[in-house]
């Protein structure tokens, strides 16, 4: 099972010939001890309410495209791809979908494809600011 572990230079795997094995000590901390501090970009202050902001699927930059299961925008004749959502999703709907629920009016697979599309949004594309605001630590 460990064969596919990423290699770590800090881990000395040579335990033969009496060599001392050196592995980095990892401080696990406590269950309640947060391990991440996030630096909010400036758009955090300009993002609208997460409840009300909207994400089109796809956005204007990909109008007419279909959404593949992995979230990429593909042509309409791509097998397994889903057509445009037909309505914008609110930030709250997307947040719920990212936590395992289904986007309203979509099948489970369709919802997952749309969420994958939203995860791939980049700065400057429709819905990016809304998506980014979903991830702001509160």
């Amino acid at each position: 099972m460990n064969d596919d572990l990423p290699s770590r230079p800090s881990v000395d795997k040579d335990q033969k010939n009496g060599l001392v094995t050196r592995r980095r000590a990892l401080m696990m901390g406590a269950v309640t001890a947060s391990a991440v501090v996030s630096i909010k970009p400036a758009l955090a202050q300009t993002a609208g309410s997460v409840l009300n902001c909207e994400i089109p699927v796809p956005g204007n930059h990909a109008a007419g495209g279909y959404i593949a299961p992995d979230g990429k925008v593909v042509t309409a004749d791509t097998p397994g791809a889903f057509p445009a959502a037909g309505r914008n999703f609110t930030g709250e709907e997307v947040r719920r979908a990212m936590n395992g629920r289904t986007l309203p009016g979509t099948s489970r697979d369709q919802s997952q494809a749309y969420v994958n599309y939203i995860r791939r949004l980049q700065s400057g594309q429709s819905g990016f600011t809304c998506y980014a605001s979903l991830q702001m630590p509160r």
Partner: protein
Amino acid sequence: MTQKYRAAEKDELIWHDLDSMTLLYHRPSGITHMLADPAPAILEVMGGVPLSAIEIAERLAAGFDLESNIDTENIVLARLEELSGLGLVSRVPT
């Protein structure tokens, strides 16, 4: 069924190691995160495959010296939920 998690894709992240912290820039959200142990190690051992908290705990135990007498699985689970809330890890539908 046990919940599995998948780390954000490699090309979505830019890593920068500091002395005791790791800076992680998440391209899709444009957010920079400062990570302390064990969060960077968790993301590292996850690779690109869906894993449960216990599987990640096993990988950590295989690659690192861990303190004894700690509940590694529950600490990993708590960190996964924290990373999930930030978009650095996603829950894989079961």
